[in-house]
């Protein structure tokens, strides 16, 4: 039964991907993407990656999907001009040939992967004790490969700076995105009152269980960011001006705490990002707690977009 389910899932995923490629209308393709992200979440569960499924649902499908939907609606008027530039059939044939070739090469590679598969699972298992956490993914992300995670938080922050850098000079330091008007009788305002408290609890919960079960800071942070944006879009709240000192501090706070704890490791445990015996779980938790608000804020501001209004 599981095989049939997998086969059905794979077919469905491919059909949706093909749809996104051939759809005439960009908006239709984007809606396809939202559904596609959801199906991928099922794929991750079938591939025994519940942590990845959570991330896909929250960031890959969820936030990216919402971003694409908003962009597609705004870019409507550029559609016709773009469609006129569709390349002729020789280009398309060449593209199909070469892209098909890549698929063929990858398929050969997949079939030629060695048996038994190499794995770092046994090594991870043997060393999990030293980290004090129960979820191996968290162990890898915050102990064995902690530097990747540190860089990742920097990547998110750089993306935010990149988005901000697109602001017109005149409104530098202003508030991102349009101001949404609140209409107290709207369904939207109601939804934005009811959902965020629940979402906040779920976000913190997903973050909290991350130490021992699937979950973690990125997944939790994106749920919280989404809930805050919901309130902004309903007009119940407004994005802060990006020049605020507290905002800047809150954004860099998480990464700075991470680096500080990492640097302390040089003195206490002999290496950058090392944790002294017995304190590992505590320090990992401290890093995660520091990162959660910074990440939630960064993700939310990335989604809120380019500053458009003066701070007043």
């Amino acid at each position, binding site marked *: 039964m599981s095989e049939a389910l997998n086969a059905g899932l794979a077919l469905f995923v491919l059909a949706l991907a093909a749809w996104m490629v051939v759809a005439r209308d960009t908006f239709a393709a984007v809606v396809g993407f939202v559904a596609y992200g959801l199906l991928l979440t099922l794929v991750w*569960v079938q591939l025994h990656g519940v942590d990845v499924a959570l991330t896909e649902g929250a960031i890959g499908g969820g936030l990216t999907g919402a971003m694409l*939907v908003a962009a597609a609606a705004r870019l409507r008027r550029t559609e016709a001009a773009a469609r006129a530039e569709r390349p002729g059939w020789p280009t398309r044939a060449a593209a199909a040939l070469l892209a098909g070739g890549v698929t063929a090469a990858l398929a050969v590679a997949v079939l030629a992967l060695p048996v038994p598969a190499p794995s770092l699972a046994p090594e991870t298992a043997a060393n999990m004790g030293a980290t004090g956490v129960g979820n191996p993914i968290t162990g890898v992300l915050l102990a064995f490969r902690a530097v990747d995670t540190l860089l990742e938080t920097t990547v998110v922050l750089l993306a935010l700076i990149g988005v901000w850098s697109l602001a017109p000079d005149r409104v530098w330091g202003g508030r991102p995105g349009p101001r949404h008007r609140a209409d107290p009788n709207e369904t939207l305002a109601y939804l934005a009152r009811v959902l965020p408290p629940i979402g906040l609890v779920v976000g913190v919960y997903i973050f909290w269980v991350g130490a021992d079960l*699937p979950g973690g800071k990125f997944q939790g942070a994106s749920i919280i960011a989404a809930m805050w944006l919901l309130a902004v*879009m309903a007009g119940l709240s407004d994005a802060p001006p990006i020049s605020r000192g507290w905002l800047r501090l809150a954004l860099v706070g998480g990464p700075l705490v991470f680096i500080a704890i990492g640097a302390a490791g040089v003195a206490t445990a002999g290496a950058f990002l090392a944790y002294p015996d017995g304190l590992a779980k505590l320090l990992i938790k401290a890093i995660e707690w520091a990162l959660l608000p910074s990440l939630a804020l960064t993700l939310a501001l990335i989604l809120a977009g380019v500053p458009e209004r003066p701070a007043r």
Partner: protein
Amino acid sequence: MAEFLLAAALFVLAMVALGFVRILRGPGDADRMMAAQLIGTGGIGALLLIGAAMGVGPVVDVALTLALLAAFASVAFFKAVTDGQPDDTGAAERE
């Protein structure tokens, strides 16, 4: 039992695939978004069934996340379609 649950998941997925046809046909943006939401709901159902079949508890968390972000995506869609007209806000930004 697990077999039955997986069969049920497959069935839900097959039904959802019919909703996929709706996306293909449109005609309006709202139709398409509703079809995506249908896939969302069906997908969450399938997810929960799979989770129960494999006995993986945390799958429930995934379903919860998906449900919350599906609501977020539909609000983003609504706002983008209703007041995302670039020329309203864009005109003021031009230097």
